[in-house]
């Protein structure tokens, strides 16, 4: 019996070696480590990867929610969307034609800390696609008609998104959970803010805000540094340098807990609780990250696995540079679910969280990170974040060393500090949560 066990272990070991041994012929030879350099006044981060025939370019316009207020929220993506209707070198429909001819895709994505203007293209089309992309940033036409058409489409997008209860939940929760912080304003804009933004405001915003010092350009894919410098040079020199200086956002203030009820007749009710967290890069971030993961596992187990009260029960991590965490569930039994969430907060307070599972969550973060870095665009986002948090690209992987260093006492202290400052928002049938309304 024992001998057969040993044989089985040895066999498994041999098989492990066979399955995972390096295959030199498959290893890309031209890949580089990430590097950063200046092209004129523009900061560039670059990594060559030869996994595929593609290139991902991410132009980060820094500041995000800190660049706007509640009246002009959405103005930065509006500039970028309106730029699709024409630019100096490609006026009117010529621009869409030039981009379409490359088969490339351009995306605009807002975030609390930046707006990402992205280009995904085939390596063979990089020169042509970059020319169109760059012209949109440097010299958009921004005619009245362009801005109004783009605005109309953004308002429609908000209207369509508003039919999704999850979107609605966040729209309600954002100004409550982030009150007193720039994140209270949605950089994507609201129906109300978008409708009032005028074309002249958009042109002025472009003139004053689209400056090299407020940009971070990240290029990841099958392209070498010399090519990047050749392409980016004229672009950087055409941009005003500006005087923007990047600084991390302040932490989200801790405030007394609250619950907000939004009556809606829906097939299922929705509840979210959002609590502030530390700054990304701070000594507390690892413990906060792990604590949120731990709470998510706890909620999923108690709400979905044990009681089948929800399909989706978890603890989202709002992984912005000013971090936040949360509790989330959709359910037709919200009172029971909210009580489980409150019980989880109490477990934080009385030190009865299942801390034995911590190593599992470290590993979970590691594999999620590996998967997100697998695509060129994912890697570009991670590199940008790394650079903006610590000002350089040193110590790739140091986040995980920090996570593994978190001990139970760190975690208890950090979680106990932040989680009780939770702000709940409930959307659904108020009669089901009467006991929580005081």
């Amino acid at each position, binding site marked *: 019996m024992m001998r057969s066990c040993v044989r089985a272990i040895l066999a498994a070991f041999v098989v492990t070696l066979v*399955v*995972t041994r390096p295959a030199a012929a*498959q290893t890309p030879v031209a890949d580089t480590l990430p590097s950063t350099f200046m092209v004129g006044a523009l900061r560039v981060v670059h990594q060559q990867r030869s996994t595929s025939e593609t290139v991902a370019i991410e132009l980060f316009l820094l500041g995000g929610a800190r660049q706007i207020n509640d009246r002009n929220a959405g103005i930065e993506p509006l500039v970028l969307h309106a730029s699709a209707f024409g630019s100096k070198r490609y006026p009117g429909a010529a621009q869409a034609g030039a981009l379409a001819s490359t088969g490339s*895709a351009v995306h605009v994505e807002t975030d609390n800390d930046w707006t990402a203007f992205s280009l995904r293209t085939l390596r063979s089309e990089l020169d042509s696609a970059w020319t169109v992309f760059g012209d949109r940033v440097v010299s958009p036409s921004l005619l009245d008609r362009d801005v109004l058409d783009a605005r109309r489409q953004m308002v429609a997008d908000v209207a369509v998104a508003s039919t999704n209860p999850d979107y609605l939940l966040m729209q309600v929760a954002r100004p409550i959970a982030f009150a007193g912080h720039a994140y209270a304003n949605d950089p994507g804009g609201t129906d109300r803010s978008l409708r009032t933004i005028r074309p002249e405001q958009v042109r002025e915003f472009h003139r004053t805000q689209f400056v090299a010092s407020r940009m971070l350009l990240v290029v990841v894919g099958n392209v070498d540094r010399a090519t990047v410098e050749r392409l980016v040079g004229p672009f950087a020199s055409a941009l005003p340098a500006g005087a923007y200086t990047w600084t991390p956002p302040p932490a989200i203030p801790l405030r007394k807990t609250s619950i907000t009820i939004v009556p809606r007749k829906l097939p299922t009710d929705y509840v979210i609780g959002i609590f502030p967290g530390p700054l990304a890069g701070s000594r507390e971030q690892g413990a906060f990250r792990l604590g949120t993961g731990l709470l998510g596992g706890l909620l999923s187990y108690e709400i979905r696995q044990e009681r089948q009260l929800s399909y989706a029960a978890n603890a989202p991590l709002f992984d912005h540079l000013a971090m936040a965490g949360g509790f989330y569930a959709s359910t037709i039994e919200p009172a029971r679910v909210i009580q489980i969430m409150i019980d989880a907060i109490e477990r934080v307070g009385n030190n009865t969280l299942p801390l034995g599972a911590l190593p599992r969550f470290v590993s979970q973060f590691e594999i999620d990170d590996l998967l997100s870095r697998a695509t060129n665009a994912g890697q570009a986002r991670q590199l940008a974040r790394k650079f903006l948090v610590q000002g350089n690209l040193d110590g790739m992987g140091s986040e995980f060393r920090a996570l593994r260093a978190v001990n139970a006492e760190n975690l208890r202290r950090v979680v106990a500090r932040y989680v009780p400052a939770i702000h709940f928002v409930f959307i659904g049938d108020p009669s089901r949560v009467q006991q929580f309304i005081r």
Partner: protein
Amino acid sequence: MNACPVPCGGRVVRLLVALCLCFAAPALAQPVLSTGSWRMRMDRSIRDTVLANGLTIIVNENRTTPVTTVIVAFRGGAAMQDPGDEGLAHLAEHYLFRAYGNEGAFESEVASLNGTYNGWTSAEGVGYYITVPSKGAVSAIGVMSRLVRTTKFNERVLNAEKRVVMNELARDAGASSILRTGLGSRMWGMEWTRKDVSGSPLSIELLKPSHLRSMLATQYVPSNAAVIIAGDVDASGAIAEASRRFGDWPPAQSQSPADLAPSTIKPTGTTAVFSDSAPDVSLVTLSIQWPGARVRQSPHDARAAELFAEMVNSGVSPAMGRLINSGSVHSLSMSAETADGRGPVTLTVVLTPDDIDRAAAALRAELDRFASSDYLNATLVAAGRKRLVHKAEGWLESSAVASQMIASMWTVADLDYFRSYGDAVAQTDLAQVSTFVKAYIAGRPFVAGAVGPGTHVDRVRAALATHFGGNAP
């Protein structure tokens, strides 16, 4: 907000697969890829074999990230459902994770491998996967082997998982779901059962363990399955390990999914406003849907469908020019689902309710233009072709994404469809797209439907009837 970052029984991956398979949106005269370039790369990185029990094993080496994904995919999916079984394939997908050993055992084993897992259900396939750090690849293959060979039936576990699925249905019961169901039932008639992945709360409630047992016995068998291992592995070793773990899986007779394409579809051409009850709906979403190509019978047409959709979605398509830029509609998108069960191909516009008459008339005029010989042109085709190649190249960046695409294409077609995909797309030409449009779209029967605010039901209904009624041949 990511509402579902933890294993969720299918929704996230189903969306991913749907997004990948519904190739929608926007090129030049020179070849996009050199002839045979894609195929050569696939032949270098992909190996496959079929075991004596009928199981297909596919390995895709990609060493860029030290992770490995192991998928077990089954052909069939919702297409195997009988009337009354709507949602069965999806419920089975949920059930299997819970039926693995003691309660929570699957989660614990995956966690012990530092891995992540999920599943997906589509109209023609079901898939289960684990992604682990590569050092755990051997164990992951073993876990998956045990998972899909579950023979334990526990009514309590099944009923518990029904409640979770019910909440998933409730989450998805918004305007887009109402429209999808309404269009589907009118498009496929009685055969909607075989397209209805989600089912309804009632159909889920009525499903019995016997339904599940019967389904697993006939579909979860080696000859109907593929094990796909992708990532940082050695192909020979991975095939050997999969053969060892799955080789003793007893062969069994499976229903042949080859005959499951809906056969009696008759798009009625009737129109309807499907709901005024979806909350917070302020705009009208209007969709036109056509039966598409059968990918196994007409792979050229399936790729031409994707290309046509890319052309329509292109920022320079005639449809965009006339409908979007004129302000008739706010957005326009076409999707072509790659499936053996005849697509479908769906065109969707979003518009302001007060503009319904003008927008519906403009959309109808656009549909009528599809038949004209000058609607398509070589420049548009070249642009769409390049866009599709770009998307396909994007899959190869991540072994996890590539593995999902291999699984999806294997379930609806075969591995060769994936192996030849990039080259085949790069060679699709104007003549093939024109042939597809004439055969499937221009002047062909379709269904039309809309969902919008309750205040405009009568106007929307009237506009649909006026502009899209009576289109059956």
